[in-house]
């Protein structure tokens, strides 16, 4: 009983099956497009996905931002300062998912955390998980695929962040931060001259509304492009082509997906529709997750930021660990992840 209520809510609110039906009815009955044509499939995919993603985004960003307003970076730093070793990496990765963060703040966060005496490895656990796993993207994953895949994605994302940060600590990578960061650490104490200010309810509400506008104004184009590519894949590209390149029979599928994804700069919201279309075309779940993770965890702008505060050795180690982590994850999911679909 409870289960069937959950399934119903899931279908109506997350998968929005009512919306898909309405879009299809509109296209077939009012516009008179034949259901079996490729044009119909592409149009239906595009309209349904765009409306669904924007509706979900607005609601999810509001909820996520409201929660985030309780987790300032300063608070995160205080919590992490009390921990050591792998627990510190684990909590760093977990807090990365809820602490408000944009890639333009990665330099201040890096320097601020390091100044407070946090090991560089812990900071990297935070920096890896932050773009990779966030509340809104997890619910969107559940909406487009299912909860099992969403949860698997979170767990794998956290593992990559924890293991990556721990390895950076083990190899004593603290040495390889840029000189100007070291100087700034020696010159001043890490204490912020700042009144710890508690936001009122109304301010949290305003902040959440502001975030919705801000994020949507930033990602809408990515989403449209993503859905557009997804629609083209969905309707026009023959399944056999995609299977040859990205299908499970090609041993390099995960590798290709990861390498294509790394330099791409898109929000996870823009990659989801592409992922959706690829899965519908029979691409393995591991390959698709590898693509999404590569796009979000490593992108040119974020790599340029990180490169400014660390020396090449640590930078390449960071990129290497994340890439290898994504590759291993992708092949494991392709081999054993069939039960998730």
């Amino acid at each position, binding site marked *: 009983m409870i289960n069937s209520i959950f399934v119903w809510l899931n279908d109506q609110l997350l998968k929005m099956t009512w919306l898909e039906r309405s879009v299809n009815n509109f296209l077939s009955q009012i516009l008179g497009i034949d259901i079996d044509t490729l044009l119909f499939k592409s149009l239906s995919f595009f309209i349904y996905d765009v409306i669904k993603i924007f509706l979900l985004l607005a609601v999810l960003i509001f909820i996520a931002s409201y929660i985030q307003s309780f987790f300032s970076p300063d608070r995160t730093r205080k919590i992490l300062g009390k921990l050591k070793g792998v627990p510190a990496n684990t909590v760093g990765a977990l807090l990365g998912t809820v602490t408000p963060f944009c890639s333009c703040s990665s330099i201040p966060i890096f320097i601020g955390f390091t100044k407070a005496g946090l090991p560089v490895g812990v900071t990297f656990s935070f920096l890896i998980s932050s773009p990779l796993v966030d509340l809104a993207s997890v619910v969107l994953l559940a909406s487009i695929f299912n909860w099992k895949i969403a949860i698997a994605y979170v767990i794998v994302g956290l593992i990559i962040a924890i293991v990556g940060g721990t390895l950076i600590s083990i190899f004593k990578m603290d040495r390889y931060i840029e000189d100007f960061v070291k100087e700034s650490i020696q010159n001043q104490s890490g204490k912020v001259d*700042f009144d710890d200010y508690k936001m009122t309810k109304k301010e949290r509400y305003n902040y959440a509304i502001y975030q919705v506008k801000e994020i949507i104004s930033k990602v809408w184009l990515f989403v449209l492009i993503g859905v557009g590519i997804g629609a083209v894949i969905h309707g026009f590209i023959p399944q056999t082509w995609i299977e040859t390149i990205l299908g499970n029979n090609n041993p390099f599928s995960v590798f290709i997906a990861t390498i294509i994804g790394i330099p791409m700069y898109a929000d996870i919201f823009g990659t989801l529709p592409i992922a959706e279309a690829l899965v519908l075309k029979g691409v393995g779940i591991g390959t698709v997750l590898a693509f999404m993770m590569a796009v979000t965890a490593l992108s040119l702008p974020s790599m340029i930021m990180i490169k400014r505060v660390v020396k090449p050795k640590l930078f390449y180690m960071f990129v290497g660990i994340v890439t290898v982590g994504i590759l291993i994850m992708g092949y494991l999911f392709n081999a054993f992840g069939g039960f998730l679909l």
Partner: protein
Amino acid sequence: MEIKVLGTGCKKCQVLESQVRRVVEALDRKDINITKVEDIKDIMSYNILSTPALVINEKVKVFGRIPSSDEITRWIKEI
């Protein structure tokens, strides 16, 4: 009075700067000097963790979010 807006040039930082300028204009305070700090080393000397940030008379009032006009007005009047 000295007001500084710290930010590397992200969009939020520009929004904060124009908001501060609007508030100061509305209060008609010609004694307030507004500067934008864009160098990362100078920004980090205030030990903030995320941008943008608002500094009034060398004291960090807020960072990581854009305060409302009311808040900014209140801070200015407090001093």
